[in-house]
């Protein structure tokens, strides 16, 4: 279910109205940036990825079907682009080459203690946990992104991540 105003913005953006798309960007920018950052753990990479995600969404917005939720559709583009970067490290290599980041610039801390527990998880556990428990992807969908693990292995990993989180002394 989408609000009339959002529907109007999508329709206008599909007709090529960039101001309408700017509104859609504004409404979803923080969410997409936070998703990118929580997975990549680097602000520069997350910012460039966010830009690329919104540009790709603009190029494909004509394919968004009527009634399809924009934020879910945008998130699917985001997850695809983020995983593409995780596989190829294209943006990362470019930034390292330009001397903007180093190979070790991969840690982000939040003002929220609970979020930090998630950010400090090992890569695979963090990514799978974020996709399942925050972004509501199914175990099967996640196994499409993580090539070297079966659905069952992913399921077990996410569940032991949950158990370790709720039993962390810092948690609550």
């Amino acid at each position, binding site marked *: *279910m989408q*609000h009339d*105003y*959002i529907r109007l913005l999508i329709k206008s953006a599909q007709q090529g109205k*960039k101001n309408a*798309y*700017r509104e859609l*960007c*504004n*409404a979803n*920018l*923080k*969410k997409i*940036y*936070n998703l990118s*950052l929580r997975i990549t753990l680097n*602000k*520069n990479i*997350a*910012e*460039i990825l*966010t*830009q*690329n995600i*919104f*540009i790709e969404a*603009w190029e494909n917005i004509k394919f968004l079907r009527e009634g399809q939720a924009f*934020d879910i559709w945008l998130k699917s583009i985001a997850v695809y682009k983020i995983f593409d970067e995780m596989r190829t490290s294209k943006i990362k290599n470019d*930034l390292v080459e*330009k001397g*903007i980041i180093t190979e070790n610039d991969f840690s*982000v801390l*939040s*003002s*929220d203690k*609970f*979020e930090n527990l998630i950010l400090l998880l090992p890569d695979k556990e963090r990514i799978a946990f974020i996709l399942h*428990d*925050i972004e509501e992807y199914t175990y099967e969908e996640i196994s499409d992104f993580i090539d070297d693990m079966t659905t069952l292995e992913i399921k*077990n990993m996410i*569940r*032991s991540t*949950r*158990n370790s*989180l*709720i039993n962390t002394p810092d948690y*609550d």
Partner: protein
Amino acid sequence: MTNPDQILLHDYFDNLLSPEAQKEFEETLLDKIDLAIDLGKLKNLQRNLHNLSSNFEPNEIVIENIIASLLEDKVKIDSPEIEVEKEDTKRKKKKIKKERKGLKALTKFRLKRLFTFFAFLSFIALIAAGYLYFQKENSSFPWEVSLISENSSSELQSIVSSGLGSNAHLTIGKDESVKITIVNNGIFELHGESEIEIISGTQLQNSIIIENGNLEFTPQIGNISFQLIHNEIILQSKNSQFEITASNTSTSKVKVLTNFVDINLKNVVSKIPFNHTIQYLDKNHISLPLISNASKQLTKLVHEFDIKQSNKTILSILKLSTKKNVFTLFFMLSKVTPTHRELVIEKLQHFYPLPKSITILDILMLNNDALETWWEEIYSSL
């Protein structure tokens, strides 16, 4: 993960069990307390994840880069850091041009420096005056304690004669009652087995921790500085009368009697208006507020909602809610998914249309200023 109970628990939590298996598991929970506790922890985790806000702010230039690219400007999509470097270069060039303007600029600069020096001196004087004022206002003084109950322990009687200062602990027994007067601030009464600790007692800030007990606070006109901490939740009286039944073993309750109180949870402030009651769900979560004459059916649904925000419960609450339940609905906004939020807004709007200065999108996005404006609008029309 090999423990069959744990596998079942997570399958149940992920909603992967058939209705029959679900029911069977729920029956198992009655016998296995450890499993029930683990389920509670998982639900708490889910709630925390649901409330996890987007804490990281992207650089402002990100959106400009996107729009520039759409406008097919020849702006290269670079890292914001490179963009900042470019900006720096531009600024430096401008500065060099300025320096070439000669003597006039130099005189201007000297005058500016003189002005800055005097401004700095005034600032220091202001800070010193402020500090002295703060020291005077912040000096602590004892709170007056008087007995309400007829029989009291000798320990309590000695406290009554000496008063309560900062960091003091006060424990009163089952049949004891005391009245504590905070000069120029308010009065609170403690009844029955109660335990409090005073954090600060000054003209600027009066603050206590309540471990357990029954407390009723009545402010003096103009008071804005009484705060009460229970578990990890800070309650601030906004010139408001309220009562709290605090407990470490069962559910604690706050009833607001006049005006409204601020409830501060991990720096997120909720304003609970008069005639409403909230319950502490655990150390750092509170229930939806309920008006004192809410129907039994709605009360039951709200309790269900506090445990699990199911589609059925949300729709039933929306169906049953009337104008008097507007604040229950208002506080649902931040606890439901955007899809349900839209329905809650629709229902709220039916009773109190949005002020012209805010849009539905603002509320859908849980914009704090917009929520505050709408809250004020509703509160002022009560």
